[in-house]
């Protein structure tokens, strides 16, 4: 667990970001992006903090968070595996790739492994359709992924621990 001190430090960064904004009108989404970037997910504490700073009712903040799929209120794994499920990847077999990940990691899309190492999720097109099917692990892109590569990709991150 993070100590209170760490949390305070991080809130300072968020505060700084909010203060530095030229135009605070409609800033909520940008602030949520920043907060998720800093903390990995949006906890209740963070949400209440943002609501207070931007003077927006926290219900509204929750409403925005739940609307956009990019935001998450659950902690995510160390490695986020995103299988592109855009059309180009789909017609080249992305759904089978997703099933393979689900099978090996023993979780469903959208879930995180118990050891908090991997989060598996689907994504709609990153625009690298020439490389379909595409899998992204954090920021690294794997192109032309074949079924038997799935295991190797996972192992690449298993060993790093």
């Amino acid at each position, binding site marked *: 667990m993070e100590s209170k001190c760490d949390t305070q430090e991080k809130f300072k960064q968020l505060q700084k970001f909010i203060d530095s904004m030229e135009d605070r009108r409609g800033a909520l989404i940008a602030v949520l992006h920043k907060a998720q970037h800093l903390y990995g997910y949006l906890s209740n504490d963070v949400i209440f903090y943002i609501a207070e700073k931007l003077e927006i009712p926290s219900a509204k903040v929750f409403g925005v968070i739940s609307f956009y799929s990019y935001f998450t209120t659950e902690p995510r794994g160390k490695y986020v595996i995103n299988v592109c499920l855009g059309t180009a990847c789909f017609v080249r077999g992305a759904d089978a790739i997703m099933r393979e990940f689900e099978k090996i990691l023993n979780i469903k899309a959208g879930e995180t492994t118990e050891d908090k190492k991997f989060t598996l999720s689907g994504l709609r097109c990153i625009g*690298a359709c020439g490389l*379909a099917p595409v899998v992204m692990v954090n920021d690294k892109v794997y192109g032309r992924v074949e079924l038997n590569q799935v295991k190797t990709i996972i192992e690449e991150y298993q060993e790093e621990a």
Partner: protein
Amino acid sequence: MSNFRMHLLVCGGTGCTASDSLELVKMLKESIKKHEITNEVEVVVTGCFGFCEKGPILKVYPDNVFYITVKPEDAEEIITEHVIKGRKVERLLYVEPNTKKRLEGQKSIPFYKKQIRIALRNCGFINPEDINEYIAADGYQALAKCLTEMSPDEVIDTVVQSGLRGRGGGGYPTGLKWKYTRQNQSDEKYIICNADEGDPGAFMDRSILEGDPHSVLEAMAIAGYAIGAQYGYIYIRAEYPLAISRLEIAIKQARKLGLLGEDIFSTGFNFNIGLRYGAGAFVCGEETALIHSVEGKRGEPSSKPPFPAQRGVWDKPSCVNNVETFANIPPIFLKGPAWFKKIGTEKSPGTKVFALAGKVNNVGLVEVPMGITLREVIFDIGGGIKNNKRFKAVQTGGPSGGCITSENLDIPIDYESLSSIGSMMGSGGMIVMDEDNCMVDIAKFYIEFTKDESCGKCTPCRIGNTRMLEILEKITKGNGTEQDLKDLVELGDVIKDTSLCGLGQTSPNPVLSTLHYFQDEYLAHVRDKHCPAGVCQALFSFRILPEKCVGCTACARICPAHCIEGERKKVHVIDQSRCIKCGACYNTCKFNAIEKG
């Protein structure tokens, strides 16, 4: 200033960077340093060349040599052979598939032959992070001309005369949109660039923003001058980090030179641009939803009227145009509306960028004149279907579009012709499908997408699409009836007629068009409980052909369910009750002894 004798242009688009083009740049630079020719040769990272299938792309100037699929380890050879000794690296040249001839120049490659590049004119030609290169390529000249020589009305007239139509999907005349926004009096107005490219399989906007960000900034400033706005927003997907960073750099550079900011060219015109990030909601591509999202709210659409031209961001008149539309603006002013009108068809002048993807040989970004046929795009530019399979259909317009079959391949492409055959232009995604794709499964894929992305505000879209998905799932599982097909049509018509925004109004298109063109395939699913393409797992099986099986045991070894039995050199058999239909055996067998059907 140093005089480089040679420029090495390396594609830095998302597709090529994913296949290691930045590592290639690093290796090239290291090799150049090693051979002490740093002041002779410059390595330039550019935007997308469009030929993503063969990436990473490297182009050598002035020799005009076009290398494909260049790996980081090829860097040394390119430097020592080509750059130092002037000998081309033959093995990295493009090979013409029919004649097997190696082609040097970019223009000689069939993929580029039929293209006319207006919106993509600078992609793969200039360094997107250097404003000077954009200026050298006539950048900001159009803005200068508008501000110093033309009145806002003249600017709008020029766009109207050019006949430019919105490239984001609807095809609404851009000039008229500007005109209506100008007519609405207000102290504040806004220009919005819609860069929320949500259609899966379309990536032209991303490529323009990555490869030529200044052209969009310049066009927004021109639009701002025309309608009387002083501020512009670019609403961009958070999934495009590279495009975001290039835009940030471009805005900074333009501000520094005073091409954005106060009193531009001493004309008293002020214009600034800010970025707004999307957060993964497809519906935000719809302009009223986008406006709400720019305001930091839930991106739900609202009914029109009032149109954004009347009441947009912060309830002020706003004009929303798409990235590709903006990228067409500067050339129209530099070369004149008559020049633009001559390209393309009478009702749809100019070009359109298509993202060609799916089961086609040359996946990539192509810009072609309107009026070209789908056949030319898919077979001449795209190089035909992968692995010599049979063409089945091409899906245009993303989740709002429909499928087009071979009988309509020779129709000239424009906004009207695509609508008349049950599809639409959309943002320009073009997904090619072959005989292995099941059209019921494709329709299900799109409905699953719209069901997920429906914002939930209006009932027909929220519940209607869910019901449609349920019916399609039932069909693909082998429990469908002919009545289900009738229900799908009825449900689809209701959703189209009664939904609030464009998302719902077009969402049944993929289902309705496949039902129309591939009725046989749907009937096979419901009547014969059979999936002809062998995709829907419940509706096909694998079978080993005794006359072809040699008993090599390869299938039995790879089967993850261990359900293939048989002795060495004897015919093998699949236990159907345990088969999970993963297809591993089918892909492994070297003797074509496994049948799918």
